[in-house]
């Protein structure tokens, strides 16, 4: 399973609602006809997801463009 976020990127972030730490957990991301399991940081209590800017603007954008041209 792919892991695109390093611990360094989320170590300072906590869930503001639950005041809980984040942990890497399997999450399904999908676009158009494809879906992929990836490890993303989520709130240990409520499951709120954290996606850093680098992931959104690089890897996710790259996959979106590849899926769109299929």
């Amino acid at each position: 399973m792919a892991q695109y976020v390093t611990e360094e990127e989320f170590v300072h972030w906590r869930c503001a609602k639950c005041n809980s730490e984040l942990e890497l957990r399997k999450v399904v991301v999908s676009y158009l006809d494809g879906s992929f399991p990836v490890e993303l940081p989520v709130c240990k209590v409520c499951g709120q997801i954290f996606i850093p800017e680098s992931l959104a603007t690089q890897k996710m954008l790259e996959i979106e463009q590849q899926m769109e041209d299929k």
Partner: protein
Amino acid sequence: MRAFNEEILPSAEIENAIRLLEKIGVKIQTGFKLPQFEELSHNDSRLFRIGDSEFQCIYLPHLSEELSIDPITRMTVTEGIFSGSAPVGHWVDQMSDGRRAAISMDRYLQKVSLTASRENEGAYECRLFTSLKGIQPSQSFISTDSKRTDQADIIKEAARCIQCQCMECAKGCELIRHYQDSPRTYVRQIYNNISICTGLRQKNKMINSCSICGQCEAICPNHIPFQKVVQEARETMVATKKMPPSAFDFALRDMAFSNSEKFRLAKVPVDSKACKYAFFPGCQLPASNPSSIETIFSWLQNEMEEPVGILLRCCGAIADWAGEKEKFNQARSELLSDWEVLGKPELIVSCPTCLKMFRENYPEINVRSIWPLMAKSDSLLNGKNRLNSIKMAIHDPCASRDQPDMQEAVRSLAMKLGIELEELPYNRELATCCSYGGNVWNSNPSLSRDTNEARISQNQSDYLTYCIMCRDFFLRSGKPAYHILDILFDPKLMIEHRLPIRPDYSMRHENRTRVKRHLLKQYWREEMPEEAPYEDIQLILNDPIRKLMEDRMILEEDIRQVLYYAKESGRAMINQETGHYLAHFKPSCVTYWVEYLPKEDGFEVFNVYSHRMVVEEGN
């Protein structure tokens, strides 16, 4: 062949050629004494016998001119016997004979048509246009007497070749130059791109980067309507669900905004049930120059002898360019309903694209351009807006291409304002697009910038235009550019060497709403419909964040929705080092992320980004 001088045809080349033939299974037998044509005839097995061997077909060297040889297939009157008619010593013609006959013999053995698709063999008149502009005439270096031309002269002769090719359209179009080929190739690539069943559609980006302006067709000596191919390709992609969803999404949402209650308006003058005329400013002039709308509306009410209403919304061009037929038809039908409410007035239109769209897609509606009206009016030119011979280069918007009256009227108005006009290359019927056309600014921002860079480098003077998007794209690239209304209504801009304000995407929305709010209040004493609760949220945005929002096509209203959601749900992350919050929300197909800090007077924003991928999330 071995009889040729070694210098002309080296024997090593002959050996190489023979080896190649043997490699593909050709058996070479020599020593035949070829019979005369008259001696050859089919035997019972439809074969020709020469010595001990039998052949299905035969090529005989040059035959008597009296014998009839088909000029296309090179087959003689005897089926299966092929030959050439080129005189001895005419090598090029002999090679042509041989090649044509070889193609025919191959087809003959395969029992397929000898004549199909053979139009372009040998010498033929092609449609290739080659511009001879700038090419000096020169004499041939090949001697006409019997002396052999020496090597130096042969090299000089070869250097006379101008390598004929037609790239006239590429000279005016950044897209054609960018992909480094010609529309002829692109058409084939587009066909392949929309026909494939699996694999990558590698030309999506190219298809979605054309401004559909028609300049290439206007330039093309063969009038290839490339923009129509692109338009149809986009429509096919949408119909077959192969259009990349992100390609024109931002532009389409801009159109949806223009056709929402935030801007849409259809009003007849107070005390009138219908109007004979209505002003239709389009969607982007109110976005860029909101104050001009009331000025024109008020002027028209005095200028026209009959009641003038107003119709605010998008003409549908954005959906049309995106290949979204369904969305275009919906926009068209809504516009027609609003127009009927006004009493089917004649529309007075300021935007060249809207006017083109109306003329091509709304046969029910009478339309006229505002520019000839303005050029003829005395009331607009009051002496205060007369400039003292200012030099400007006029840029015709691409949508004015087939509207010479409009082009003339704007020139006449500019001259009355005291502007000395310089013509740019690619004006009038060859007008070039600023990249707003075809929604290229959305689908290919870097090509959009290259297009503007190329255009603004063509003249040192400030640019004058009559499409507000042309003005804004030139301003974005750092070129001093003015819409003629900027000068007509605010001549001090030019006198004081100030530039018009180019609003960002969020401001373009805000300005449209302001126009509607102001007109409703000023002319009808009405208020705007109620605002959504998130619209009250105050944002604190510095210039780098505004620039980031512009680059990433994220609007203030997107940010407000994220913050409102975070406030209502309590869902956000907090950074223990900076104290910043990070929240996300997906109002439609894009998820927006905002890093922020609540302050007394609003929310200070530190970062914004988005993605389209959908992430499954716990509650």
